[in-house]
């Protein structure tokens, strides 16, 4: 069984195709990276996998469950960090973690884990409305990781984080991956992708133009790093 399996996924907004015949598979336990220029369709793809949007054509399965027909089951298996997620302003960070623990119905240690992942310390008692952008990102990410989901979909997890916390988050993702969580992440930071991802898909104008292990891709194209590959491929296909 694959963690994610997309077969011929199309998505239109009114008449505009945003995803065009997207097919890919993600094996369980991997960290799968989705890269591509702004407006390529990464967030739309993630929203479909997270059961928020329906594919206009084609089908997607998450851990064997159809994202449309079995959306409730899918939601039980995943966590999703939206690209532009906000927080409940009047809940404290700790209240929020407790709520998430209860909703995912996981062990009581989860809140402790979340508190540690967030690295927010005493600020956990403050209302989330007072948090900075980075602090909000950290509490949301912590809630996604602390419940130990089978699949975690993270849309630009380190966007807005300072260097120290980006490094910390990457390490945390690696650790959770080692414990069996599958990740599908998007990022504009190619260093991050190279460091984190076992496999990447380059998406441009709604289609996957290249997919494979980062090291294999770079050697196949004779480029130094993912950044060069990214530029080369998007120029080719754009």
């Amino acid at each position: 069984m694959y963690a994610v399996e997309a077969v011929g996924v199309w998505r239109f907004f009114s008449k505009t195709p945003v995803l065009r015949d997207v097919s890919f598979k993600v094996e369980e336990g991997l960290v799968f990276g989705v890269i591509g220029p702004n407006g390529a369709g990464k967030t739309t793809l993630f929203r479909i996998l997270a059961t928020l949007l329906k594919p206009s054509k084609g089908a997607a399965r998450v851990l064997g469950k159809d994202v449309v027909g079995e959306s409730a089951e899918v939601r039980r298996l995943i966590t999703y960090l939206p690209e532009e997620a906000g927080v409940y302003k009047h809940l404290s960070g700790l209240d929020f973690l407790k709520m998430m623990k209860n909703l995912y119905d996981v062990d009581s240690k989860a809140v402790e884990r979340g508190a540690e992942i967030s690295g927010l310390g005493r600020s956990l008692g403050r209302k989330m409305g007072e948090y900075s952008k980075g602090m909000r990102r950290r509490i949301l990410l912590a809630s996604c990781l602390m419940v130990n989901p089978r699949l975690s979909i993270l849309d630009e997890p380190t966007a807005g984080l300072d260097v120290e916390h980006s490094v910390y988050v990457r390490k945390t993702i690696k650790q959770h991956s080692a414990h069996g969580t599958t990740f599908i992440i998007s990022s504009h930071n190619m260093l991050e992708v190279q460091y984190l991802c076992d496999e990447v898909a380059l998406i441009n104008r709604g289609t996957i133009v290249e997919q494979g292990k980062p090291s294999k891709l770079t050697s196949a194209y004779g480029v130094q790093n993912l950044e060069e590959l990214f530029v080369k491929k998007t120029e080719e296909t754009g």
Partner: protein
Amino acid sequence: MKLWHLLHKEIRELFNEKTILLGVLLTPLLIFPIMGMAFTLASSGGGGELSRPTLLVIDRDGGRYAAILTEALKTAGFRTTVADHAERDVVELIKEHRPEAALVLRNGFTLNLTRGKTGLVELYVLTASVSMTELQKTSTIQKLVSDASAAVGEALAAEMGIAVSFYKQPITVAGGLVYRDKVVASQEFELLFQQYLSTTLFVPIILLMVVVTSGTVAATSVGLEKEAKTLELLLTLPISRLNILASKLLGSTIIALLGTSSMMAGLYIYFTGLTTASGMNLGIHLQPPTFAFLAVVLFVAMVATLCLGILAGVLSGDVRGGQQLASLIQIPLILPPFFVLVLADFSSIPQPYSTILLLNPFTHIIIALQHINEGAYASSIVHISVMVLFTGLVLALASWLFRGERLLTMRIRLGRRSGGV
């Protein structure tokens, strides 16, 4: 139940939202007492002074009846001053004496009265502004003058040996009112009227408030998620959409009930102030079955507007848009039946209008209230059923909106605002 974990968050966010705190919880508590205070202030403006206004008597007649009238004016309640140089210009005299009113007794006043003709006087009332207080002052002064005039009439009649009070009121009226095929004494009718006020007027007012508040609150609870960009996270949580909807409905209900209690407290303060002044008793006396029926009606109406509010929240982009759209949907639905039926009996409304009114589900609520008030529970059930049906429909619509991706992708434009996830 996972619902409770969401409910906690729902109430926290709503309770702390400024527009709710101000508009739903605080303002109603203050607005009625403030209204009451302003009203009392306006109606008693100038207070004790007004009860004995100053009057400048300009006597150009100098006869016997002029003297009698001047005396009668004093008895009626004026503090009178008699002008020394009565032949001078009226405005000049008023400037000099600064009274609240001036009365000119024309030359020939006494002569006319002795000949059996009416005597002529000119009344000038000084007005500082056009306001309730000034209007009231004017009517007080006019009443005092007419009292004095009546007194002069009695003096005239006495001189001629006529029992004036007999001629004025030669017939005494007895009997009573026939209400619901029974003769009711007028005192009893007063009691009935008070009951009418409490059930037919106050219950709908409270209903109106609950309905408007709950719609606003429900719209806000969806608007808040959109504004804070928490909706995507909420919708991917392992909790069913129906439970999410239920937590929103329940959370909004709790806040709306808090808001209603606050309004009722405000109203209570207002009316106790008003009624202790007028000596009326406006306590709401309800029999248990009436109470049960009212509770059902209130509940059904509230669920319906909660769903309409959710609808408004889903269709708009943020809190303000949601609240605006909620009132845009609710006000035309609720106000017409409310005003028409509080003022008139449904059976007295002419044909095309009554049918149009019946198309509005909220009309049935008010008719049901009237039936309940009259103890006609059976016929109220018909109207309650219509409302239950409507409520079921909007509830179905709301849960349909919560299914699939509609909550994220549906948007309508209100004014300049544009949508987009």
